């Protein structure tokens, strides 16, 4: 496995710590604590009371995002200290910030700043309106568009995980109607993602404009480890493109399926998810010629 080209993938939000592999990695707790303390000091948000079982902070979108960032950065740090040399990084949705940090494009604090400013800008532009997202498995894109058309639901396909697995965004009312209708139409699974922000939709274009100033005045370097864009599958190797990606990522749909295909085509043999679960892994099994998708701690063996 050490001979394979390795890519590190960073999740957007943690939804579960049940299979947390960090428990078996002696170096993890110390590094995680160090990053957590830095994050708490920088953001002035109570993050130090975090505990994966007793206080996982899953219901607080901003704190969950900070913890996911800290977790991802910590995994990558443990891996790189142990000699793992990734050749590419990828940030799944809001996982982009941890990917940028690990790629050497931004400092740990700049990553936190982007999370904070993006969240503030998004909240400002969505004030008063209730939005949501849902995951749907077992329907095709055509099935989804047919349901949306039939019931006049204004929904956006924010991400394609596979040909039968999608993430949708829209008003919480339309999302809830869709979930009911999707089950009636034969979806194997359709469930709210428990977020109140319609990430990766044009509804967030005003927030992206607000974020632009922060991103383009921040210290951003060319990534030392190339970062793949989930928006258009290009490799990002310069600072300007990294900045653009952070801004565009807010309001542009992404395609995880196409990104994985491109990663495997470009010679990546092993993907590893720098998070406590393997939620992204199963989708890769539907890709012909796909490499391995392993838990991050497996790279330490």
């Amino acid at each position, binding site marked *: 496995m050490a001979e394979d080209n390795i890519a590190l993938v960073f999740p957007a939000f943690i939804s579960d710590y049940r299979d947390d592999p960090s428990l078996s990695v002696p170096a993890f707790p110390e590094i995680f604590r160090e990053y957590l303390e830095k994050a708490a000091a920088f953001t002035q948000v109570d993050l130090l009371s975090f505990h994966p079982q007793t206080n996982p902070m899953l219901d607080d979108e901003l704190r969950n995002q900070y913890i996911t960032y800290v977790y991802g950065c910590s995994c990558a740090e443990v891996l790189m200290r142990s000699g793992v040399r990734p050749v590419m990084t990828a940030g799944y949705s809001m996982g982009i910030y941890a990917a940028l940090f690990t790629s050497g494009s931004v400092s740990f604090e700049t990553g936190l700043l982007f999370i904070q400013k993006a969240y503030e800008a998004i909240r400002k532009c969505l004030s008063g309106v209730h939005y949501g997202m849902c995951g749907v498995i077992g*329907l095709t894109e055509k099935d989804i568009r047919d349901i949306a058309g039939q019931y006049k639901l204004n929904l956006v396909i924010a991400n394609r995980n596979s040909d039968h697995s999608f993430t949708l965004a829209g008003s919480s009312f339309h999302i809830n109607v869709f979930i009911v209708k999707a089950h009636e139409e*034969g979806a*194997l*699974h359709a469930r709210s993602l428990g977020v109140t922000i319609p990430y990766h939709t044009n509804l967030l274009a005003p927030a992206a404009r607000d974020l632009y100033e922060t991103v383009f005045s921040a210290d951003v370097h060319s990534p030392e480890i190339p970062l793949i864009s989930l928006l258009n599958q290009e490799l990002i190797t310069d600072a300007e493109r990294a900045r653009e990606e952070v801004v565009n990522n807010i309001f542009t749909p992404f395609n995880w399926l196409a990104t994985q295909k491109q990663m495997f085509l470009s010679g990546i043999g092993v993907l590893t998810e720098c998070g406590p679960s393997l939620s992204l892994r199963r989708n890769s099994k*539907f890709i012909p010629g796909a490499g391995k998708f392993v838990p991050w701690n497996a790279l330490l063996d």
Partner: protein
Amino acid sequence: MAKITENTRNEVREAVIAFFAEECEADTSQIHDHTSIIKDLDGDSLMFLELIEVFKKRYNLDIELKTIGKYAVKHPVQTIGQLIEMQLLIIEHENRLLELDK
């Protein structure tokens, strides 16, 4: 309509158990007909989707996922035994699966 032989039945059973053993890091000897997919194995719908794709390829099945989804709403699957029976029905009836309820 495919004929389900004893051989097919055994093949499906072995494949289902081997699949969940690998996916859920469980011992095959611990997986039985009454094993709950969610409670005992922590299985989920992506695993179900993956398993369907495995059988679609292996038996060259002509069936839409949403047909299986509609059938599953009326006949929820909770255990390994129920899942094996559903896979056998899928292999046997393919896209005519919903006609079983008429």
